């Protein structure tokens, strides 16, 4: 076994083995390094609720990727708006959205709400107050605070809109309190085309804000006065801007929007004034708002899209378009609102009774087109236009499947899957040991390598792309044991064929390889094709199954090329196999190789081949 100078005929098995060892160890190290030591479990294994929503539409073309993405975004917003954290919403296939809500707590409310058509309304703002402010408010948080302490409100109420607008000319927003109160109020609504620049440029909006403000002093100053009495415990009352309708006053004072369940619980009829919370905190505080009756319905929005205003430097804004009904209603209500003082000149965009945004109106907007400006980032503009466009989305969602699995059943299912997998593996190992003896050990090693790689890749994918291992995926992995073992069988049988032909082991191993390789590649390709097609066209459970099957089939090729083949090449150099020990599984006698007379005739050219190598 002297080392030949040229490349040995049986290649450099050590290199391939080293490579796969490095890869495997690398994967495992990565798995531990990133802390994703366990695959993420799907709802059916971990417990929880899984909701499958199917899009329906009268127009088949409406079910397309961009519409589905918008809908997914909205649903995610809605689910999370309901106080369900760690819920995940994803699109699957071309018309299905899956909402997975992990175990724990009563998430049934969410399960019920999701899938009902989202309710998007435009309501005039009557009053705004930060919620849950218990400590003395930092100056500047309430808009009244622009001039100093809350107690200064009554008279100051009118001034901020003018002064702030002047003192912050650089701010693109028209709102007086924009610099203090953050973006929500900082948003402005303007007629598109008719007066885009006033709304957009800070300097020119200020006058318009001042204009509205000038009409307002009486309106704002007076109403907020009764709300100002020094409130020691909850300053939010003191910070209330605008008038809360008397019938809601008590409720308004009681609502604490910092609690998710409270935010989700606010509902009210369309034609009456209601209380609603902001969906996201502003400057750390959720806002509570008293809102007038629905002025425009979300479904009357025909189009909403983000755009970048490069001319005036207003940055990202959202363009809105209404249909006929929407145009009329919008013109009417904006005409009324524009004459009001802050905050009652604002318009709340309400999704499922939670306020997404409440821009200020600078003038009547006829013509059905409007722009919302603010210091938006591109994502924010996109997000807001998605919400607005949702009403225009010609999609309806039907709840196709809602499955609630208790954690106990989940762990039972997982256990059953693991036990079945283990037993399946043991059976396969036992079979290959009995049938292939020494070679069986190779298949065991191969299966173990394959199992380690599959496990670590699954764990990593769980952390990386959110791959969740569900029951069918476990099933796929177990079925894959058969596919992996089969590749070994194909190769082993080829080697044995060669040995039966009378070839000595080392050449037999080499000659068997190209033929086995082709068979393995062709059949694995078919299997992979099946998995890929299944993955692409299917939803939910089937997809999990297809994914594992595809992954393990791909790994099978890797293992047989980089592990099994080199390992057998190495082993074929060992005496135990080379001399065909009865337990090696390659005993020529047992395999019934050609009778000695013929073998001797064959041996000569064959051994010549070895020398060549």
């Amino acid at each position: 076994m002297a080392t030949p100078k040229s490349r040995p005929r049986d290649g450099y098995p050590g290199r391939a083995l080293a490579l796969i060892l490095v890869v495997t160890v690398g994967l495992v190290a990565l798995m531990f390094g990133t802390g994703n030591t366990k695959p993420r479990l799907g709802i059916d294994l971990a417990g929880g609720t899984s909701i499958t929503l199917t899009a329906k539409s009268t127009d088949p073309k409406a079910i397309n990727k961009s519409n589905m993405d918008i809908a997914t975004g909205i649903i995610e917003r809605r689910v999370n708006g309901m106080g369900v954290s760690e819920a995940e919403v994803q699109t699957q296939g071309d018309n299905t959205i899956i909402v997975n809500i992990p175990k724990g707590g009563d998430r049934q409310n969410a399960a019920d709400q999701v899938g009902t058509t989202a309710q998007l309304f435009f309501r005039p703002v009557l009053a705004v107050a930060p919620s849950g402010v218990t400590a003395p408010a930092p100056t500047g948080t309430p808009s009244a605070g622009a001039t100093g302490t809350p107690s200064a409100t009554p008279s100051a109420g009118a001034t901020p809109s003018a002064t702030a607008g002047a003192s912050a000319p650089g701010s693109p927003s028209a709102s007086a309190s924009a610099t203090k109160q953050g973006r929500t109020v900082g948003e402005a609504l303007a007629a598109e085309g008719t007066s885009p620049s006033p709304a957009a440029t800070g300097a020119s909006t200020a006058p318009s804000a001042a204009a509205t403000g000038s009409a307002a002093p009486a309106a704002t100053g007076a109403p907020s006065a009764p709300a100002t009495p020094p409130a020691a415990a909850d300053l939010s009352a003191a910070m209330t801007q605008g008038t809360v309708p008397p019938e809601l006053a008590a409720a308004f004072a009681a609502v604490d929007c910092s609690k998710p369940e409270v935010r989700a619980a606010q509902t009210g009829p369309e034609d009456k004034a209601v209380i609603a919370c902001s969906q996201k905190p502003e400057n750390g505080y959720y806002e509570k708002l008293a809102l007038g009756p629905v002025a425009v319905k979300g479904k009357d929005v025909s189009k909403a899209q983000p755009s970048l205003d490069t001319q005036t430097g207003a940055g990202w804004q959202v363009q809105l378009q209404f249909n006929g009904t929407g145009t009329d209603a919008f013109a009417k209500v904006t005409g009324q609102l524009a004459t009001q003082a802050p905050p009652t000149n604002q318009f709340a965009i309400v999704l499922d009774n939670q306020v997404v945004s409440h821009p200020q109106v600078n003038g009547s907007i006829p013509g059905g087109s409007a722009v919302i400006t603010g210091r938006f980032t591109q994502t924010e503009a996109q997000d807001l236009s998605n919400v607005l466009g949702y009403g225009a989305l010609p999609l309806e969602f039907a709840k196709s499947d809602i499955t609630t699995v208790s954690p106990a059943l989940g762990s039972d299912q997982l256990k059953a899957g693991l036990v079945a997998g283990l037993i399946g593996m043991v059976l396969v190992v036992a079979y290959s040991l009995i049938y292939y003896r020494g070679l069986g050990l190779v298949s065991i090693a191969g299966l173990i390598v394959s199992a380690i790689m599959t496990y670590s890749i699954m764990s990593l994918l769980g952390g990386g792309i959110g791959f969740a291992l569900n029951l069918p995926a476990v099933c796929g992995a177990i079925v894959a044991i058969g596919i992996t073992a089969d590749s070994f069988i194909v190769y082993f049988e080829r080697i044995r064929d060669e040995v039966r032909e009378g070839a000595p082991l080392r050449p037999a191993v080499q000659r068997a390889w190209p033929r086995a390789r082709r068979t393995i590649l062709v059949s694995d390709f078919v299997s992979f094709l099946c998995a890929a097609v299944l993955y692409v066209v299917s939803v939910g459970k089937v997809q999990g199954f297809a994914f594992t099957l595809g992954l393990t089939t791909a790994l099978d090729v890797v293992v047989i090329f980089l592990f099994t083949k080199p390992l057998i090449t190495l082993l074929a150099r060992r005496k135990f196999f080379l001399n065909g020990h009865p337990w090696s599984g390659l005993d020529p006698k047992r395999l019934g190789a050609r009778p000695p007379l013929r073998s001797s005739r064959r041996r000569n050219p064959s051994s010549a081949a070895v020398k060549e190598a």
Partner: protein
Amino acid sequence: MSRFSNLGHRLYQGEVSFDFVGRRKLWYSISGVIVLVAAIGLAMGLHLGIEFKGGSVYTVAKPGLTVSQAQEKADQVVSSHPLVQSTDNGKIRIQVSTEEPKSSDEVRSQLAEKIGVPLDTVEAQVIGPSWGKQISSKALTGLIIFMILVTVYLAIAFEWRMAVAALVALIHDLLITIGVYALVGFEVTPGTVIGFLTILGYSLYDTVVVFDTVKENTKGLTKQNKLTYSEAANAGLNQTLVRSLNTTVVALLPVAALLFIGGGILGAGTLNDISLALFIGLAAGAYSSICVATPLLAQLKEEQPEMKALRKRVLQHRAAADKVEDAVAGDELADEGQPAGMVGQRGRAAGTRAKGRPSTKR
């Protein structure tokens, strides 16, 4: 096991040979009967699970709760007289139709209350009426796409005849599996559909391996006059028979584990549904790749003019060989001049392994 191993050797050397290809009429009739029965079963209709009909299912685990007790409780909650069954693992399954006016939430919480179990231990599944249709139409789309792709692939990798034969075998397997479901009345669930779809891959996998050997065995076949295509194909089939059996056993072992262990611990469930379909499909797949796909392939190939010519030559050669038997006796070639009825393997398909094989030279 050593006898089996020995069989492998004897099969390989052609000492023992099963004439699969020659008996194609037998296989065709067996398959025909099975498929016919399956078709009758299908015509009778499949027993579709709730996923295909719509409605809701609640599963409650409470020791000592009998079906009749549960029925009574469930009737108090649900107006539309739900179907109450006990599952294999001692749980109670309450199936409510789509007509139920109460929301699933209400039903679930009221059931929990009436039966007296914590809410989060009540499993619930609510399925819209069109969901099953969607799953099946998706599965069908997948099936068609896959069949087209795989036919194209096999036609390129092998040849169109092999693609056709493999496709027929595939449809054969699917029909048998679905037919068994229809006849026995197993419930068809999305899990079962997954199982059906997996059979696609597996059935073809097996067929592909067999065809690979057949292809190799029939390479350069027209250059000799000792074996017809059918005989050469059959020889290949016999050589790979042990592998086919081993593959099937190895594939069936984990599936069987899944079926019996998964079913044993959990009762009916996804694991069971997938593995049952797989189990039937795999068995059918092993049979069809040997007894349906290859004979069919041979039949198709024998229609080719050059294969017809080959058959003629082979028959002539054999007739001549019979006459001058004595003259050739003792020669090594005698091995190959076997009577037509016995499919000889000793000689292997001539020329198939000649390349780069000094040892093939005799």
